[in-house]
């Protein structure tokens, strides 16, 4: 609440006293007037990182009754090491061993949609969300254990996902979370461990994705193989500025395995079943209609125009 109070005052001050200044930056004078007459209520303090868009705890962390811990991120591992770094953040703030956390990255069905993985935003946005979600969850677990055991939270500590009382009573996260909903807003961001107390974050940890990438485990989009997956290929023109003038797909449509030829202006692509494409056609080959397996797919007439 103090944060909101601090926020309100300077904003009102600005609106009252800084009208001339605001005018410089406002496109619509009508909007400025409206603001002066009836200042809109200040927005609630924005949740940090990607919590601002996905404020619910269960968007970031799932704990199953069998003690499995899954952390979700909408950012993708691109070799920048976020699988490892985000797991460190979760392990630190949950007080759970690093190796016990399963991190799920950029799964459209399961993780928050955090947009692009770019511009060094993964730790700032996703890392911040996971940090606060994990800290909130840890404190929630301590609260539940305190309730169950009928003792003050101060007498409880967490070791590798188990809340332990000073008398030695133990309640695991899995036990505590059983029957509880984690669909709650991560509204309190005061519980995270401070940097001086970090034991996992900031440590140099071997990257978890490297062994798989160096031994041929499926690690890239190219390694995804789905049932009934079809393949598309773009037929590229011989050079920039070339226009696709004429296209005859009659012989292509008859070919076994070809599902569709897609044309959108100068853009041309073929969709076919499975492994029909036995070698990559270069645009040149395809458009010159040389007798190679793929180029026979499309007979076309391409006239180049000066760029």
């Amino acid at each position, binding site marked *: 609440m103090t944060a909101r109070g601090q926020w309100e005052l300077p904003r009102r001050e600005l609106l009252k006293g800084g009208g001339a200044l605001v005018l410089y930056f406002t496109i619509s004078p009508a909007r400025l007037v409206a603001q002066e007459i009836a200042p809109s209520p200040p927005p609630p303090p924005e949740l940090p990182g990607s919590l601002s868009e996905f404020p619910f705890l269960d968007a970031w962390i799932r704990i199953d009754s069998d003690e499995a811990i899954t952390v979700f991120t909408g950012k993708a591992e691109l070799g920048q090491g976020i699988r490892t770094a985000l797991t460190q953040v979760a392990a630190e703030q949950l007080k759970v061993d690093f190796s016990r956390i399963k991190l799920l990255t950029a799964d459209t069905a399961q993780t928050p949609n955090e947009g692009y993985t770019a511009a060094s935003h993964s730790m700032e946005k996703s890392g911040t969300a996971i940090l606060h979600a994990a800290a909130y969850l840890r404190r929630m677990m301590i609260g539940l254990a305190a309730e169950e055991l009928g003792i003050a939270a101060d007498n409880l500590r967490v070791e590798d996902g188990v809340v332990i009382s000073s008398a030695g009573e133990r309640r695991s996260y899995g036990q505590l979370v059983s029957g509880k909903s984690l669909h709650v807003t991560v509204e309190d961001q005061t519980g995270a461990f401070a940097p001086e107390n970090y034991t996992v974050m900031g440590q140099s940890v*071997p990257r978890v994705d*490297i062994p798989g990438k160096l*031994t041929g485990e499926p690690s*890239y989009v190219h390694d995804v193989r789905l049932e009934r997956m079809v393949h598309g290929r773009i037929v590229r023109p011989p050079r920039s500025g070339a226009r696709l003038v004429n296209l005859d797909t009659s012989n292509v449509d008859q070919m076994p395995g070809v599902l569709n030829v897609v044309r959108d202006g100068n853009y041309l692509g073929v969709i076919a079943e499975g*492994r029909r494409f036995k*070698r990559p056609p270069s645009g040149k080959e395809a458009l010159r209609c040389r007798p190679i397996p793929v180029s026979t797919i499309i007979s076309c007439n391409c006239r180049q125009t000066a760029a």
Partner: protein
Amino acid sequence: MITLRVNGSTLETDSDPETPLLYVLRNDMELNGAKFGCGLGQCGSCTVLVDNMPIFSCLTPIAMLADRDITTLEGLGSIDAPGPVQRAFIEEQAAQCGYCIPGMIIRAHALLMRNSAPDEAAIRDALEPSLCRCGTHMRILRAVRRASEGFQEQTSAARERNR
């Protein structure tokens, strides 16, 4: 029908004889190690060994490979039992995106089989056809030097045994 011998197992394939090896490895055999990078033999991410010599699998038609010994990244070790070069790369954390590394490991392996104590120039020369755009080069070089120590220990141990 062409018979291919990959990592010790045999595959009969009715693919077009001019199909590049990479397509058979990735699509038919579902091996992920060799990568499609440029498809033009310019980046080295598709490199595999044929009779212990590194080749670009994206350019090499299977017609040329009947009854030759083909080794891919998977043939050098697995995630549970990585080979000596893979182990050295893991220990040195010599990968950023990791896409070029299978080719680097294959080339380093071929080099160390020929010469277990290569000097810096020989290592650089052997890896030259593989491109890394992340900029992991110094770690890659360290990993090959580390792997070379492993190979030398192996060689001297073998020499001891044969004495």
